[in-house]
C-alpha cells in the first residue's frame, strides 16, 4: 500500500451565476513512503488545487470534491473537518508559494513554529520554543535564538521560506507538499531552498510532492514526474526517462521551449503556440489538440485515455515516437 493513493480526484468550482469549472479532472497518482513526486504544468492546470484538495483546504462553499484520497489507508475526503485538522501539520505538512504573506505579520517567528508543536505534541510553550530553535537551526537559519523573537518583516525572503519549511516539518510528517516554494524567491536563493528540501527529505525519509511550473526544479529533485494539462494528467514517468525521451507532445514542447546554453547563436526559440484559452473540453477530445503539432483527426473527437507504455503513462493518440520506433519508421519508409 502506498503512503498516498489518489484516485479519480475531481474538483469542480461553482460560483454563483457562473458556469461550473472543472479544475482537477480525474487525477490519479500514488506516492510511496520517502518518494519525491513532481506535479508539473502551467498556471491554471490544476496542480495547486490538487494539493489543496488533498490537504482539505478548499472552501466548502463553491468547490465540489469527489474521488478518493487515501493516506496510510484512511480516506481523507470523508473525514470530518476536526479529524482532518488533527492530521494536518502532524501527518501531512504543506509549504506555500509566498513566504511573506504566508506568515502572520504580528506574531514572532518562534511562536509560529512552536504553535505546531504545542498543538500536535502537547508541548508547553518553553519546551516548544527550544525545539523551535533547534528546527530553525536545522533549516540553516543563522543565530536561531535571536530569530525566535523577531517578526517576519525582519527576515529575508530566503529565511522566511526556511522558517516555513521548519514549521511544516516540525512534527515529522510522513508527507510534505510543497506548492511552488521557490517561485517567489531570487534565483540564487531558489537553489539553496531546493537543496535544503532535498537534504531534509532524504534525512527524514519524508515523502514529498513538489508542485511547480519549472522543469528545472523537477529535474533536480523528483523521482517520478506527473505532467498535468487542463486538469488531467497527460504523462507520467520516471525522472531520467521522461527528460531523456518525453513522449507527450506537451511535455516535448515544454522541454523544447527551454533556451539551451549550447544552442548556436541566432537559433530561434520554440514556444508552444497558442494558449490555454484555446483548449477544447476533455469531453470532446484532447484539450491540447488545438495547440498540438502532432494532432490528428481523432484528437478532436475522441478523448484519449491514460495508457501504459513500458512504464510510461501517456494520454495521447499520437505521441512523439520513441527513438527506436523512429529509426524503424525511417528504415521502413526506406
Amino acid at each position: 500500500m502506498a503512503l498516498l493513493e489518489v484516485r479519480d480526484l475531481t474538483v469542480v468550482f461553482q460560483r454563483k451565476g457562473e458556469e461550473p469549472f472543472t479544475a482537477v479532472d480525474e487525477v490519479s497518482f500514488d506516492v510511496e513512503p520517502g518518494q519525491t513526486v513532481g506535479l508539473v504544468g502551467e498556471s491554471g492546470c490544476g496542480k495547486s488545487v490538487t494539493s489543496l484538495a488533498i490537504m482539505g483546504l478548499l472552501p466548502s462553499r463553491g468547490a465540489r470534491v469527489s474521488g478518493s484520497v487515501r493516506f496510510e489507508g484512511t480516506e481523507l475526503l470523508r473525514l470530518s473537518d476536526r479529524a482532518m485538522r488533527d492530521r494536518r501539520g502532524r501527518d501531512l505538512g504543506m509549504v506555500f508559494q509566498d513566504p511573506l504573506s504566508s506568515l502572520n505579520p504580528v506574531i514572532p517567528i518562534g511562536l509560529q513554529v512552536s504553535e505546531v508543536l504545542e498543538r500536535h505534541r502537547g508541548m508547553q510553550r518553553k519546551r516548544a520554543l527550544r525545539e523551535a530553535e533547534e528546527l530553525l537551526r536545522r533549516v540553516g537559519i543563522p543565530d536561531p535564538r535571536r530569530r525566535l523573537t523577531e517578526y517576519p518583516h525582519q527576515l529575508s525572503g530566503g529565511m522566511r521560506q526556511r522558517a516555513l519549511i521548519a514549521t511544516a516539518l516540525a512534527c515529522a510528517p510522513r508527507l510534505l507538499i510543497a506548492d511552488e516554494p521557490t517561485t517567489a524567491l531570487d534565483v540564487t536563493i531558489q537553489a539553496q531552498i531546493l537543496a535544503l528540501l532535498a537534504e531534509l527529505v532524504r534525512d527524514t525519509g519524508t515523502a514529498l510532492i513538489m508542485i511547480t511550473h519549472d522543469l528545472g526544479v523537477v529535474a533536480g529533485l523528483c523521482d517520478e514526474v506527473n505532467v498535468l494539462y487542463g486538469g488531467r494528467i497527460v504523462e507520467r514517468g520516471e525522472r531520467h526517462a521522461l527528460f531523456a525521451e518525453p513522449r507527450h507532445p506537451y511535455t516535448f514542447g515544454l522541454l523544447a521551449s527551454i533556451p539551451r546554453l549550447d544552442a548556436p547563436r541566432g537559433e530561434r526559440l520554440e514556444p508552444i503556440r497558442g494558449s490555454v484559452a484555446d483548449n477544447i473540453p476533455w469531453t470532446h477530445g484532447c484539450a491540447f489538440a488545438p495547440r498540438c503539432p502532432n494532432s490528428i483527426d481523432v484528437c478532436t473527437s475522441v478523448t484519449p485515455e491514460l495508457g501504459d507504455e513500458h512504464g510510461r503513462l501517456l494520454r495521447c493518440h499520437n505521441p512523439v515516437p520513441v527513438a527506436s520506433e523512429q529509426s524503424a519508421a525511417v528504415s521502413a519508409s526506406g
Partner: protein
Amino acid sequence: MLRYSVRRLLQLVAVLAVLSLLLFAWLRSLPGGPVSALLGERATEESRHNLRAQLGLDQPIFIQYLKFLGRALSGDFGISTGVQSGDSAVAIFVQRFPATIELAVIALAIAVAIGIPLGYMAARRRDSFLDNISVVSSLIGVAVPVFFLAYLLKYVFAEQLHWLPDSGRQTGDLEATRVTGFFILDGILTREWDASLDAFLHLILPAIALATIPFAVIFRITRAAVLDVLNEDYVRTARAKGLTQQVIRSRHVLRNALLPVVTTIGLQTGGLLAGAILTEKVFAYPGLGEAVALSFQKRDYPVLQMLVLTAAMVYVLVNLAVDLSYAVIDPRVRTR
C-alpha cells in the same frame, strides 16, 4: 518611536494653536460683540467697562489674542451667564465632566461588546441570515436620528412601562457619598450598592441611545476587516498547520483584524461627544452635553467657548493615544 511621538505631540500643539485662533476669531464675531456675549444682556455698565479693559479692546488685535491665550491657559473662561449663572465656566466643567465620561464609557463598552463579536460572526458566516440581519440593523442604526431614538427609548421604557427612570443621574432623595464623581464607581468604593445600582439604572437608556452609531460603525469595520483577513495567506498557513479554531481565531484572525478597529474606536469619541449633546438633553442628564444644549439656548457664550475647546482637546488627545497604541499592538510599527 520616540521621534514619532514627538512629531505627533507637535502636531497636537499645532492643532490647538489653530483652534485657539479660530476660537478667538469666533468670539469676536458673535452677535453683539464679545462684551455682550461674555457678560450677557443684563450686565452693568461698570462690569462692561472692566471687561473691555481686561480684553484690551482698544489695543491691537495681536495683544488681544495674547490676552485671550493667557486667560485660556490660566483656566479663565469667564463666568456662566445662563447655564449655571454666576459659576465659573471651569467649575461647571469640573462638575459635569464625570457624568459625561461615565455615560460615554458605558456607551462605548456596549458598542464594543456587541459590535466586535457580531462583526466577527457576520464575517465568518457571510451572506447568512445572521450576516444580513446584522448589516441591515447597523444601516438602520445610522439612519435613525440619535435624539429621536433617545426619545423613543424614554417613551417606551420610562414613560409607558416605568421600568427605568426618565431623567437625571440619580433619584432625587437618594443620599450617596461621592468620591470620584463617577457615581457607579463611588457606590462600589463606598460599598453603597444601592447608589451604584441607582446610577446604573439612570445610565442604561441614554447609554443605549448613544451607543447605536458607534456600534454600527464598529460592527461594519470589524466585519470588513475580518473578511479581509480570512482571505489572507497566513490564515491558510494556520489551517495547513492543523491549528484549532480557537487559536486561529484569536492569534491569527482577530490579532490582525482588530488593528483598524482600534483606530475606529478612537475616531468614535467625536461621535460620542456629539451624540451626548442630544442624548443628555432628552434625558435631562446633567453632563457636558446638556451644558452645550443649554448654553446655546441661553446664549451662554463663556460656557460654550470652554466646551468647544475642551471637546477638541479630548478628541485630539484620544487620537494621539490611539496612534501611540498602534506602536504597542503592531510590531511592524515598533521595530522599524
